[in-house]
């Protein structure tokens, strides 16, 4: 009885084991048994994981490129356009109130704002000499602008001053010339308060712009106060409706754009449409999304194929190696040991596919980046997540084959 009791104790103490080192060794040996098949099996996973990594890397890189090319100036400009919905019988319309600059200036985040519109369409000539002198007439664009519009356009002066609220309020016949317009008209100095004649009407030149305002119209042509233009030529024509330029603080453009139309036309904001620059963050997202939509679907299909491939190969291995399974059971393996071994094999396949896929994906992304002269951007985490994802796919793919393997009866398996 004593011997029996001690035997039972010994048996209970020492159950059969399957150590991690043994598990790893057996799984690797199982895979290396048929290296060609193992390599082919992981192709789907390599393609899937590699695709994911390449797509994510490329979309991150592309989004980074967009961010770089977005300059601050563009990101802080909002335009409000007149839809012309309330135009009169002649088609002319002016839906911006006279105090539009002041109304929009009150919106938080606005630096400067003003209305402008093109005045002439070839029928109004500009000359540096009075009409009676019959001097050279130059075809220059003439714009009407509120003082705020010039400021909002980022206009810098080369000489003189910009017209201001005084000129606007009193509809002074003053003009600001773009640099090239001044050169064309032969005006280089403001010392003698030169005059120009727009459609025969004399205007005093009070300022000459430096290069690089936002609107070429101002830089190339002649700009006069809004009130003077209205007095002389009436409301904006349908071909050149009035537009408001709003210069906002960085990051405020979207919010200002939402509020501008209501601030200007509280009774009928729909006649005006405000356009904000595309939010860089949104643009990045949309670029990523467009990449994602097509290619991530393809990579997903490749991953599913990869998972099915691993599942299939592991199942075939289970059926092929049923006598090995029987032998292992006879050597003391429990069903769970058998299941773990095949799970480890499929997981190792997935992990290997993920590793190779991540490497190839990064290489592809770098190749494209170099070809496009971009700066490669890649979240480093993806390099670690990708093989782990491959391992998880392998683990999932191995579940059914492992279950099958663990339920094989050793007595049946050994008979083969």
């Amino acid at each position: 009885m004593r011997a029996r009791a001690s035997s039972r104790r010994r048996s209970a103490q020492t159950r059969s084991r399957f150590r991690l080192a043994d598990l790893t060794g057996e799984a690797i040996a199982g895979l290396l048994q048929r290296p060609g098949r193992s390599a082919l099996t992981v192709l789907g996973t390599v393609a899937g994981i590699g695709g994911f990594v390449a797509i994510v890397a490329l979309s991150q890189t592309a989004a980074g490129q967009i961010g770089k090319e977005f300059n601050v100036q563009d990101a802080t400009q909002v335009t409000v356009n007149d839809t012309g919905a309330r135009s009169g019988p002649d088609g002319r319309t002016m839906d911006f109130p006279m105090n539009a600059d002041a109304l929009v200036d009150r919106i938080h985040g606005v630096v400067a704002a003003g209305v402008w519109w093109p005045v002439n369409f070839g029928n109004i000539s500009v000359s540096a000499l009075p009409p009676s002198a019959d001097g050279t007439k130059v075809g220059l664009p003439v714009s009407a602008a509120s003082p705020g519009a010039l400021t909002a356009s980022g206009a810098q002066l080369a000489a003189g001053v910009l017209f201001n609220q005084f000129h606007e309020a009193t509809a002074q016949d003053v003009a600001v010339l773009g640099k090239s317009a001044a050169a064309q008209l032969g005006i280089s100095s403001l010392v003698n308060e030169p005059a120009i004649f727009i459609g025969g009407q004399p205007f005093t030149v009070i300022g000459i712009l430096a290069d690089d305002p936002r609107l070429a119209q101002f830089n190339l042509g002649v700009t006069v106060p809004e009130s003077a233009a209205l007095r002389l030529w009436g409301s904006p024509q349908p071909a050149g409706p009035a537009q408001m330029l709003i210069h906002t603080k960085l990051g405020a453009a979207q919010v200002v754009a939402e509020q501008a139309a209501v601030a200007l036309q509280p009774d009928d904001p729909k006649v005006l449409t405000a356009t904000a620059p595309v939010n860089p963050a949104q643009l990045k997202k949309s670029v990523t999304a467009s990449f994602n939509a097509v290619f991530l679907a393809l990579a997903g299909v490749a991953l599913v194929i990869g998972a099915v491939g691993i599942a299939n190969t592991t199942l075939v291995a289970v059926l092929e190696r049923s006598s090995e399974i029987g032998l292992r059971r006879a050597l003391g393996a429990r069903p769970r040991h058998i299941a773990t071994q095949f799970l480890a094999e499929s997981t190792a396949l997935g992990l290997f596919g993920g590793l190779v896929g991540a490497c190839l994906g990064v290489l592809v992304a770098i190749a494209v980046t170099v070809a496009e002269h971009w700066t490669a951007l890649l979240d480093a985490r993806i390099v670690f997540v990708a093989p782990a994802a491959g391992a998880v796919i392998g683990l999932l793919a191995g579940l059914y084959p492992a279950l099958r393997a663990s339920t094989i009866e050793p007595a049946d398996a050994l008979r083969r």
Partner: protein
Amino acid sequence: MTSPSSEPPVIQLSAVGYTYSGPPPVQALRPTDLVIRRGEHVAITGPSGSGKSTLLNLLGLLDRPTQGKLEIDGIDLGHASERDRAAVRARHIGFVFQSFHLLPHRSAIENVMLAFVYADVPRRRRYAEAMSALGGVGLARKAHALPTELSGGERQRVAIARALVNRPSLLLCDEPTGNLDTTSTKELTDLLGGLHGQGATLLVITHNPVVAAQAQRQIRIRDGCLSEQGPALPHDPEMLRDQRDPWTQEDPGAHFGEQNGGSHARPGV
């Protein structure tokens, strides 16, 4: 050392039977009593379909009896958990199969070391012990050969080394010479005889009368019934002459039972 009477037998079957659940149900093994004591060399013979494989699967804990009580080394294992049965398979039973069941992509010593994986033997001890087991079957020089590079007899000796490497209480051999030529069969029977001489408990299922004749006890199984025969003479001319089918003769033995088995009890080794 405990006296032979107090030491539990290596195998003790009490009314163990096995019925395939059908339909129709087939009784592959009728309720049987059997005792195999330590150090015995037992041959089980019988025609195909007689229940040999069923008995082997039950004794090897690869299948569970549908009735009765099965004890190995005094541990009731017929109804034990798979965990306990697997542990006993790992340490108390060594298997030798007709088709060797060596893993084809692993060398002889790697095949032997496979027996250590589930028996929880520390890795640093494995190589030396496997090499010593291969030396015991005379294959130390071919330890790194693949099974495909070994003859049938050598493969079976690798399998025997694998079965013995954990020093099991019982060596279960299922047609160990079934795939071997006469020379290899001779080598193998000599090896088994030597193991018996060293005190191993052997249970050999065989069709080969020479292999069976070497055993100290012969048990015939027929239609699921066990019957004990007296110790055969190693060179029984009648058995050797009628090798093609020695089982066509009428079974002279009575149904085998515990009382018969007890008479063959040997002193403990």
